[in-house]
Structure formats: structure tokens, C-alpha cells
């Protein structure tokens, strides 16, 4: 097992899938020689040829619309959209087509494509390079929405996404790309799309997060324990749609308290669905309303202020304590 950061882990997933299956085609802006602006596709064009890690003209709808056609014709395209802030350009190709060819053709055609794109703040980037809009894709019928939180699960989930017969939107946290390394086995590893994971056990409180916020939730859990003896259960959602509510609902049944954390804006954000599900499925166990620790309902500010926007460990700790004091 090698210790890899998330960029390397994703690269490993792509490389191995491309080796095994020549229908896997990477395409996007600068994914060829340049290896992607974050280097996730580094070396793929050299290893597999330019057609397998295909630089495209600068047009997101073109990339995704072309991928839809490739997928319908039997390939497994993995598109890279350079930043999720530019994935709105291809929104109609996903909503109107990738998500629907199976239904529209009564099952004759389907769209086994992946749309990888970096999301989220924390890397001192320009406007449009730091936002979180996972709800747009999570609410969309016909697609799946996945957000890994570590090198190892990123690799396993990307392999599963590539093999999935339906379109998968795959958000990669820029803040996590090179944040830390993890043992990632050389052997094939997959992780089922549509399953969440318990990362830490505790009976006092349930922390629910995904992507970059999972790490903060874990740190917050450690501090809650150290500073106040509070034991938090931590759930990593990993897939936002279809949403696996079994683990967090069970957890809340034990803890009676939940905090959901995300970078996306509060209103109509992912936390709303989590809170609604918990209320629906664990109402009589809840001792306080689900707390939402999230971005604010404004565009994430330019980078000098972005850390005041993104939920901090301190803030998670504070809201968790507040929640428990209410008991």
C-alpha cells in the first residue's frame, strides 16, 4: 500500500480503470498533456494515448453533450469540468439528457458517464472557483451525486462511479486534493454508491458531513471529547443522491441530537434534506432540532474572507455544545 494524496488516489483509479477497460475515456479541458489543472489526469495521455485522455475545445456543454453521445454508443466517458463553477454551462445536458436517456428510450440506451469536478473553497482561488452547489445535482432525478472525503474513499468511489451504468456527478474537494495522504491499496477497491459510513462512534451527538467538512467534523468530535467529554457519532455521507439515511437515522435514534455540516449555502441546502429525513424517520427520538452548520446564503466571498464563510471546527464545536445544552 502506498500513501497517496487525493489527487494521486484519483489518478490511480482512472489509470487502473483505463487499463482494464478501453471504453473508459477521459475528456475535458487540459486533461491531456497538462494532466488537468490539478494534475488528476497526470500521465494518462502518455500512458494510454491522447484519445484516451482527450483535450477538448473550451466548451462545457460540448464536453458533456459529447460524453452523453459517447456513453450512448457504449463508451464510458469520464468528463472533467475544470471547476464546478463552470458546470452550469452543461447543466441542461445533464438535466435534459444524461439523466433521461434511459427513461426516454425505455431502457434501450443508458448513459454510463462520470462528471468529475472540483468544488468548494479553501484554496485561495478566484471567483467561481470556490463554491458548493451539490444540491443542484442532488435534487436532479436520474443522476447520482457522490462526494468523497479522503484519498482512499475517493479512489474506491471513482472506480464505482466509472462502472456505474448511470450518470454520476463526482465532486472533488479542492481543499482535500493535497491536504493529507492515506494508505491506498494497489489492488482494486470499490465502494458502493448510495452508502454512507460511520467514521467515529459516540452516543451523545451525531455529526453528519461529507467532502471537506468531514475532516472538520472529525476534528470537532475530537475536541468535543477532549474539552467536554462529549462523544460524537460521525457519519460520512459519501453519496448525496441516492441518499442513504439508514446510518444517520439510526445514529440519531441513539443520540437524540444531530448537527449537519456543509459549505453550501444554508437555505435549500443539503442540510435541509438531512434534517427533514431525520424528522421523518426519528421524530420521537429527537431531543432538539437538527442543527445546520453551513455556508451563508450569499456567494462565497473572494478568498481573503472565504474562511469566514466556510464552517470552521470551532463553529461546529460551538453549535454542538449549544445543541446539547438544550437537553
Amino acid at each position, binding site marked *: 500500500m502506498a500513501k497517496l494524496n487525493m489527487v494521486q488516489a484519483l489518478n490511480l483509479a482512472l489509470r487502473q480503470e483505463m487499463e482494464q477497460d478501453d471504453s473508459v*475515456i477521459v475528456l475535458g479541458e487540459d486533461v491531456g498533456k497538462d494532466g488537468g489543472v490539478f494534475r488528476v489526469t497526470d500521465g494518462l495521455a502518455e500512458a494510454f494515448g491522447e*484519445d484516451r485522455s482527450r483535450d*477538448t*475545445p473550451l*466548451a462545457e*456543454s*460540448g464536453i*458533456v*453533450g*459529447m*460524453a*452523453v*453521445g*459517447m*456513453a*450512448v*454508443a*457504449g*463508451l464510458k*466517458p469520464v468528463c472533467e469540468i475544470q471547476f464546478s463553477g463552470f458546470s452550469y454551462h452543461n447543466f*441542461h*445536458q445533464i438535466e*435534459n*439528457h444524461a439523466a433521461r*436517456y*434511459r*427513461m*426516454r*428510450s*425505455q*431502457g*434501450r*440506451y*443508458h448513459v454510463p458517464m462520470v462528471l468529475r469536478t472540483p468544488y468548494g473553497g479553501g484554496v485561495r482561488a478566484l471567483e467561481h472557483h470556490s463554491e458548493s452547489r451539490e444540491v443542484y445535482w442532488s435534487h436532479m*432525478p*436520474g443522476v*447520482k451525486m457522490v462526494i468523497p472525503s479522503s484519498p482512499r474513499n475517493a479512489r474506491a468511489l471513482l472506480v464505482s462511479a466509472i462502472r*456505474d*451504468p*448511470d450518470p454520476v456527478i463526482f465532486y472533488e474537494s479542492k481543499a482535500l486534493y493535497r491536504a493529507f495522504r492515506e494508505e491506498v491499496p494497489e489492488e482494486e477497491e470499490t465502494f458502493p454508491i*448510495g452508502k454512507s459510513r460511520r467514521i467515529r462512534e459516540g452516543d451523545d451527538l451525531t455529526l453528519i458531513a461529507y467532502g471537506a467538512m468531514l475532516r472538520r467534523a472529525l476534528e470537532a468530535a475530537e475536541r468535543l471529547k477532549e474539552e467536554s467529554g462529549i462523544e460524537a457519532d460521525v457519519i460520512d455521507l459519501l453519496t448525496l443522491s*441516492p*441518499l*442513504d439515511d439508514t446510518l444517520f437515522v439510526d445514529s440519531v435514534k441513539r443520540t437524540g441530537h444531530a448537527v449537519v455540516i456543509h459549505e453550501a449555502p444554508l437555505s435549500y441546502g443539503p442540510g435541509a434534506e438531512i434534517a427533514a429525513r431525520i424528522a421523518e424517520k426519528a421524530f420521537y427520538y429527537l431531543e432538539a432540532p437538527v442543527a445546520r452548520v453551513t455556508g451563508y446564503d450569499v456567494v462565497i466571498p473572494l478568498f481573503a474572507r472565504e474562511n469566514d464563510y466556510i464552517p470552521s471546527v470551532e463553529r461546529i464545536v460551538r453549535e454542538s455544545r449549544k445543541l446539547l445544552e438544550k437537553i
Partner: protein
Amino acid sequence: MPRTLIELETKLEKLSVLDEAGNLDKELEPEISDDFLKALFRAMLLGRRFDERLLSLQRQGRIGTFPPTTGQEAAQLGAVAALQPEDWMAPSFRETVAEVWRGKSMESIIIHNNGFSEGDDADAKFNNLPVSVPVASQTLHAVGIAWALKYRKMPRVAMTFFGDGATSEGDFHEALNFAGVFQVPVVFVCQNNHWAISVPLARQTRSRTLAQKAAAYGIPGIQVDGNDILAVYSAAREAVQRARDGGGPTLIECVTYRLQMHTTADDPKRYRSDEEVEVWRKRDPIPRFQTYLMDKGIFSEEDVKTLEASIKDEIQQAVDRAEERMKALGAPLTMFDHAYATTPPHLEEQKRYLKTLLSVGGKEAQHG
């Protein structure tokens, strides 16, 4: 330099073979077997009669809104006639005539027009995409398919259809540009029927032809008389052959006219004059082609009569079969069937819920 003109890398051309009266430009006449010519004529006539029948069904409330094809038969058929079944077709929403040529049953079309997804089945022998309503969006799918064909070294091509209005969409631009850059085997067939709902061509773009838009992508463009099936076929055959031979994409503009309303929900009197329509009625592609066949001596007035009768029959049978089949359709739970390869738990749950609703209240429980 200094101040010089830019030379284009590919040709932008115009082509016409049969004039309005059916007179032939002998030099340009394509070689087509008599049987194939007759098959084309039958398909044109069938397309026309089926369109008329759909219109009357719609007026009787027996089908929903649909987009008529009358006047555009030559443009559609001339293009698809150049394809093999295993070639791909990515239609827009107004290619009923082309779809029927490529194995789609009229029965399915009626069922689709009644809002049943079961009407979206297709003949497995042909590689046809289902209709695509969002204007121009399917052109990119054709490019992706063509990319896959080239990658797999398959001797096939993709052909995609769209209207004059569609050329304004960003997706059209991205599709032609990608096709040019990747030199994939795709043929772009624009049915320039002069109107995008109420917007005339002159307000859609300032370019004098749509074919010249090919210049922006360094690919060949050709404008053909779209009511002249021989011209359309010649241009399509050439483009398909070039694509099959690795010569990359072509843009074909078929100049034609939508003689009917945009869809049955539209009232063209609001935006265009009867005189304009009359001018185009005289350019109807069917009589022109008939004259050619008769002049050629392979078709008689008698043949037309026999043909009309057999077509009428075929259409009636399709209507009957569709109406029979629809009696058995309508079970709402199928809405969950083709959402994903494997229905995820939350959809199973929702499906069970709807099932309960239906069982407690019967139909009434559901409908508002």
C-alpha cells in the same frame, strides 16, 4: 498581409438538381436504382398522409400535441436515404418521416403522441436516438457517437437533424466545432424550414445562408434545395461517404418550408401570410419528384392510385393497433422503471407508496 482577404479552407456550395416543375439538371442527376426511387416516393407519400392523419386525430382529441412534417419530406428522406441501418440518427422532434424510414412504427408514434413512454420503443436493427425536444442539444450527442465510432474504427456515421432556429443555440456551435476539431464521421442536416415557431429566418441570423456557418469550423458546407430529393440525396450521399472515408463532418442546409403549424398548439396566421405559404406550396417536394419519376417512365398515375390505397390501409392499421395497445397501457408504477439500472431504496419506497395510494383509492385517490 498587409490588407488582404482571408481564404477559406473548405468550399461553401449550393446545389439543386430538380427545379420546381420537376425539370432535371441531367449533369447532376444522381445514380439511383428504380426500386430505390420508388421506395423513396412511397415513403414521401406515406409521410404526407400519415401527417394528415395525425392532424385529424389531434383535432379529434385522439392524440396530443405534435409537430407536423408536411413539406419537409424530401429534406428528411433525402438525407436518411444515404444511411445504412447501423449508422446512427440523432433526430430533433420533427423527423417523423425519417424515423419511419428508419424502422420506427407509426403505431409507436401514435402511442408516443398520446403521452405514453411505451411509444418510445424503436426497431433494434436501426441505431436511432429517441426524439430530442431541447433544440440543438442532440447535435452534440451525434458528435459523441461519431467520436465513439471513430475510436472503435467502425465504418459507420452519425447523422443529426435540426432546424434553422437550432443554429442559434450554443450547442449547435459547440457540436460543429468539436466535430471539426476531432474530424469525426458526422453529418449535420439542417432543415431550414424558414421558421422557428413565429421567428422568420431573417431574424434568426444575419448570415445569408446557414451553410456558410461551416466556415467557422473549417468544414465543408453545402446549401441544397431541400424540396428536391435528388439534391438532398446527392449532398447527403457525398457527405456520408466523406465521413465514412475519414474525411470528417459536413454541414448540409436543406432549404425547405414548414407548410403546417409549428405544432398543433400553434396558430401560424398570427405571424405569417397565406401568400407566403402559397408560394411554398408550389414548391411541394412530392409532385416534383412524381413528375421526375413519370418523366423517367418508371411511375404512372395508376401506380399513384394503388400506392395511395395501400398507404391508407397501412396507416389505418397502425391507428387501430395503437388504439388497441393503449387500452392496456397506463399503469402509473412504470414511471419508476427506467430511472436507474437498479432502482435505489428510496425509489422502491416511493413506488410502494404510490402502489398503496392506487390500491386504497383506485384511480380517484390519485387524480386531483
